[in-house]
């Protein structure tokens, strides 16, 4: 059984009271980012590592992220396990929190993650003491391999990055929620708070959103809406939603043979 029966989300050695994770890419301005972090109350954000553009002076993004927020370095840009591993080691050597979101993408058309390379990178980085949260296409065998490798969570995509299509992979995410003991953090493709709520109602442990918030006209207001939706969805899940029942089909009684008379028709 998962350890998240109540509202506290435990990943590795940390606890979170807010199940809305925020990605920090693509914001029009760092002030927007700071406002979104504050408005949503998010406790964990992803950041990336990039070569510094020497011709431009960029503010240090870390100045816009409050101290208590957990930083998760995303290996975005890595096209192979080796590249992801290198980026992770870089972050660790530079003294950053060894929480890594492994994102290995070698496909510029759909930006789908390479599950096989992600498993490889997870195996290596867990051995080196990283807290690894791998981003993958939802697949039961892949998730099992990640559990075996020691991942701290599994981050299945809801739909293609930036597509705002919501839970296209709904059925497969449900399987992971049912079968995998690790926290399931739905990531990618969440375009609206209702979609985030839906993911939480299914039983996901958290949701990560980036594009939708960064591209919104009012990022901080949308970030707040997302956090509220995630909390609502979580409460709905904990409350034990009555399941949606399809209308009973009016076929002939199946159990009439057990009684002398046929079962009387309902209502």
């Amino acid at each position, binding site marked *: 059984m998962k350890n998240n029966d109540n509202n506290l989300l435990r990943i590795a050695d940390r606890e979170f009271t807010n199940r809305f994770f925020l990605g920090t890419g693509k914001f029009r301005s760092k002030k927007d980012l700071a406002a979104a972090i504050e408005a949503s109350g998010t406790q964990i954000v992803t950041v990336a590592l990039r070569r510094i553009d020497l011709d431009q002076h960029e503010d240090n993004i870390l100045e816009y992220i409050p101290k208590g927020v957990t930083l998760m370095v995303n290996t975005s840009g890595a096209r192979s396990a080796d590249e992801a591993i290198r980026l992770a080691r870089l972050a660790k050597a530079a003294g950053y929190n060894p929480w890594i979101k492994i994102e290995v993408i070698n496909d510029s058309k759909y930006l789908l993650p390479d599950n096989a390379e992600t498993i490889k990178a997870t195996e290596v980085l867990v051995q080196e003491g990283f807290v690894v949260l791998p981003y993958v296409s939802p697949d039961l065998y892949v998730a099992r391999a990640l559990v075996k490798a020691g991942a701290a969570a599994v981050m299945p995509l809801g739909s293609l990055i930036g597509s705002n299509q919501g839970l296209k992979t709904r059925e497969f995410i449900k399987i992971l929620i049912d*079968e995998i003991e690790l926290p399931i953090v739905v990531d990618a493709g969440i375009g609206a708070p209702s979609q985030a709520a839906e993911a939480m109602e299914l039983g996901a442990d958290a949701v990560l959103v980036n594009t939708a918030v960064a591209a919104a006209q009012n990022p901080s207001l949308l970030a707040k809406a997302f956090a509220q939706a995630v909390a609502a969805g979580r409460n709905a899940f904990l409350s034990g939603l009555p399941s949606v029942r399809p209308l*009973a*089909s009016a*076929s002939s*009684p*199946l*159990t009439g*043979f*057990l*009684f002398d008379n046929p*079962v*009387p028709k*309902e209502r």
Partner: protein
Amino acid sequence: MSSHLRQILDDPRPEPLEELAQEAARVTRQYFGGAVTLYAPIYLANFCSSRCVYCGFSSQAKIHRRKLEPAQYRGEMAYLHDLGIRNVLLLTGESLRVTPVAYLEESARAAAEHFQGIAIEVYPMETDDYRRLFAAGVDGLTIYQETYDRARYAEVHLSGFKKDYDYRRATPARAAEAGFRQISLGVLLGLQADAAADVSALWEHLRELERAYPGVEYSVSFPRLRPIKTQEFVHGDVTDVQFIKILCLTRIFFPRVGINLSTRESAQLRDHAVGLAVTRISAGSNTAVGGYSVLGDEAQDPQFDIKDERSVAQIVQMLKTRGFDPVFTDWRNR
């Protein structure tokens, strides 16, 4: 869980039963289509060193003890093969001395010449023994705990192999370790007074195994004892209605697990249970050693009395008429 189940079993109203049946039928159709797998048992021997109060083969029972020699069991196998059977269940009593693993291995090799699916229902053994049998062509194991209630278990298993509750309960896992692809669990309804407790315990055992060995195809069976004068060991009575509820609930909780209905049950019940929840049935069965081709008119000493005596052809006809697809071969395994 067992208290919820008890409430459902005791609920006398017919409407919820019908709802339950409709849902179970829907789930069965969704996951199995109309497929019903047919198989037949072959009793290789009835020598037994265990004393189980409910069994016709108990070491205390005064019956003819028989063990088939290769020519004889090949005869049984050819007979069933000619009827169209391609899945076979090889059974023996629990005697390591008379029917050791080597004997089972040889019979499995013979069976592999006639059948695509070979399962065994014999004494529990070690993982390495299962590996030997797997290499010989066996990939299915049937092993029923009979009852999960330790106290009752001790009461009905008086001596021999079967007395060890834990060894028996851990047997499915050992077979899974050895590579077995199909494992069948079961409880003997009526053995203890609280059927709900046994059914719940069986479900729990099944969930455990599903988690630990997700690559195995599981099935369950609920052989049922009815209280009759000569059977004092029957402490509970599971009525037809309750029985159907158990089958339907099992189907709903375990959409992918096969549900077996033995020939202990009447033809009428079997016919209706198929499509509600049941997806595996034996056809043309004989539960005596050498009962198909060896014994003729001699006293057969069957392990239990068969209520549904229909032939393979009759079962096939029944299934087709009701819109189901009889399946003789699971090509995946061979």
